[in-house]
């Protein structure tokens, strides 16, 4: 079991304690424990089939945990009361609206299901459709909207009743980068206004948008921490990438007090893990030059979140008995839109 502690949790809105879910002989979720404080944004990230949607469905009451305990707003998701349900918004992963209804009718229908009366409904329908930039398309049938528009419509439906807790299963999937930026801005605004948001995403780069990230792999919680802490956890500190004109022995740097480790990739190419890149870089360069080397380039290396998650997952697998070394790759990249390359 991997257990992690949230950043702040005086009165958590969401609690999972050793929650597991098993389908026949397949373990979809294994002993996951986490808490989410109010007014925070938790991103659940992991490879396809990792158990992200299973976790969200357990939290929304769509799926029963086979072990452990889940609480949302203090209630067991299996026995949500109407008042609790009115405070929860949910956006499923798959398109789940009525194709023959227009965009406006779909949002209005969902608002009605949450018991919103006409006047407020009309106001909110317009507000959320404008938010997702679908107000001009309100008269178009949902089936006639593009895939991206349908996702935005679903997001509008999840937001229309102004819920205190939002569960969003891949809300930005299929959206263009500009709209994703808009959505994230709105999610941050919602978070800042006290809403608690749990979302899954396939765009690992979006982890940076979250207050905390739960990394799930093969049904297990690999890590739960703020994004920057995860980065440092993966690399063991700040990483300096040094290239030299001539042969240099990285072992000479290990004697420096601020150096944690040295990864020598070639005779002229080093990765040096230090406590703090800003203060350590001059000392590292001085040490190399003192040993006769000539530094041709030096910079702080910030591995992408794809790399970070690859490292953390590999390390976790190794801890479980695998053979991967958990080193960060040299030539990994992140796509411009934040998606995994």
């Amino acid at each position: 079991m991997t257990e992690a502690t949230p950043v702040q949790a005086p009165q958590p809105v969401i609690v999972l304690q050793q929650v597991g879910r098993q389908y026949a002989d397949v373990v979809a979720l294994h002993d996951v424990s986490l808490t989410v404080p109010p007014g925070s944004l938790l991103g659940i990230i992991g490879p396809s089939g990792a158990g992200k949607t299973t976790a969200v469905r357990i939290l929304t009451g769509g799926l029963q945990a086979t072990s452990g305990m889940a609480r949302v707003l203090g209630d067991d998701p299996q026995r949500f009361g109407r008042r609790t349900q009115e405070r929860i918004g949910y956006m499923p992963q798959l398109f789940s609206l009525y194709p023959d209804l227009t965009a406006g009718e779909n949002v209005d229908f969902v608002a009605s299901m949450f018991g919103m009366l006409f006047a407020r409904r009309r106001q909110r329908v317009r507000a959320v459709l404008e938010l997702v930039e679908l107000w001009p398309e309100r008269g178009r049938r949902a089936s006639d909207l593009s895939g991206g528009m349908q996702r935005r419509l679903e997001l509008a439906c999840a937001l229309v009743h102004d819920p205190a807790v939002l569960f969003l299963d891949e809300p930005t999937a299929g959206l263009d980068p500009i709209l994703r930026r808009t959505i994230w801005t709105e999610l941050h605004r919602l978070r800042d206004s006290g809403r608690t948001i749990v979302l899954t995403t396939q765009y690992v780069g979006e982890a940076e948008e979250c207050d905390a990230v739960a990394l799930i792999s093969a049904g297990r919680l690999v890590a739960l921490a703020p994004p920057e802490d995860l980065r440092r956890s993966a690399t063991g500190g700040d990483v300096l990438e040094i290239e030299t004109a001539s042969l240099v022995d990285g072992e000479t740097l290990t004697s420096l007090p601020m150096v944690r480790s040295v990864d020598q990739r070639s005779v002229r190419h080093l990765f040096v893990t230090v406590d703090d890149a800003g203060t350590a870089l001059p000392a590292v360069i001085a040490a190399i030059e003192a040993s006769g080397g000539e530094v041709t380039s030096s910079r702080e290396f910030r591995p992408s979140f794809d790399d970070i998650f690859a490292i953390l997952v590999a390390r976790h697998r190794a801890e479980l008995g695998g053979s991967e070394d958990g080193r960060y790759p040299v030539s990994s990249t992140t796509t411009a839109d934040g998606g995994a390359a």
Partner: protein
Amino acid sequence: MIVLKVATRLLAIVGKELIEVARRPGALFSLVLGPFLIMALFGLGYNNSGLSFRTVIVVPPGSGLSTQAADYQSFVAPGITLVGVQTDVETARLALREQTVDVVIIAPTDLEANFTAGRQSTIRVEYDIVSPVKANYALILAQQLGYGVNQQIIERAAAKGVSEAGSLGVTSAIPPAVIAAPTIADPHNLAPIDPSLISFFGPAVLALILQHLAVTLTALSLVRERHTGVFDVLRVSPVSAIEIVLGKVVAFAVLGGAVAAVILGLLVSAFHVPFLGDVGLVWTTIGLVLAASLGLGLLISVVSDSERQAVQLALLILLASVFFSGFVIDATQFLPAVQVVGDLLPVTHGIRLLQDLMLRGATTESWRLGVLLAIALVTLATTWLLLRRGLSARA
């Protein structure tokens, strides 16, 4: 406040269902107009002239009977078209095998002699028919032919007896025709209307269309939601299973009521189907047929795994309705155990009640209203329970 919220949800479900139907008018037309037009065509196109069998009479040589077709016209009953008189049996049988004739009547060789000697003669009737309905009809015609021939023989014998008695000075006041047939039937239909196919089938068509419409629309409506992510959204929302069921029932009852009004109007005004009964009672029947059918459709939708299965089950209901409801074949012609199948279908009771109420002005089987109500309550309650279980988390 809670009442307002529940009303808001119910109205939203009703509105959503009606909008969805309105957005796909083709489906509604094919569900309502399709069967209606087919049955109207059937009623208008069916000329009710009855079956007619091409018949050959075989007069064996030496029988002494006439070989002129005109001499046998008096034996020809309705349903028999006399196409010729032959003397060779095998030629007639060949025609039967080649299906150029339907019935071969083989006259006895020694009719008069047998009668005089006090022996029965046999009129052999042969036919080559695979249809059970036609075979039964041919059998009845053969029996009628036998009765007709017997009557003529008795009449001739009586005339001969009267004539011989007269020559001996004995007179009889009873004519030979009365001796041969002392009674004749004088049928009077006391029904308040003159029966016609359109009149008889009109109320049945109305009941069948209403059931088919309600079952098909509700079966598809809920199964689609169950197997898409819509149910995930509904599950998280405060909407309850009873609100979903009620919303759908109200929506499709409104739709079914409108369809019933249109069909009823067409039947009465365009097809001149009598409407002798109480309007309130007819609408009560229609309402109960709709409620029971909606319950049946919703039940199908909660037990179906897919839209395809829901459609198949709806078609099975339609097929069972056509066979066991009394729509085509009177329900009393089935074994009691099979009649139960028909009794479980709303249309069975709807047909009987609407035919009674519209064509007779009253019904002696008002208990069927109770059966319709029971079907509605049982199916809707079962649907609610199953749906409530479906809305809760998957174990």
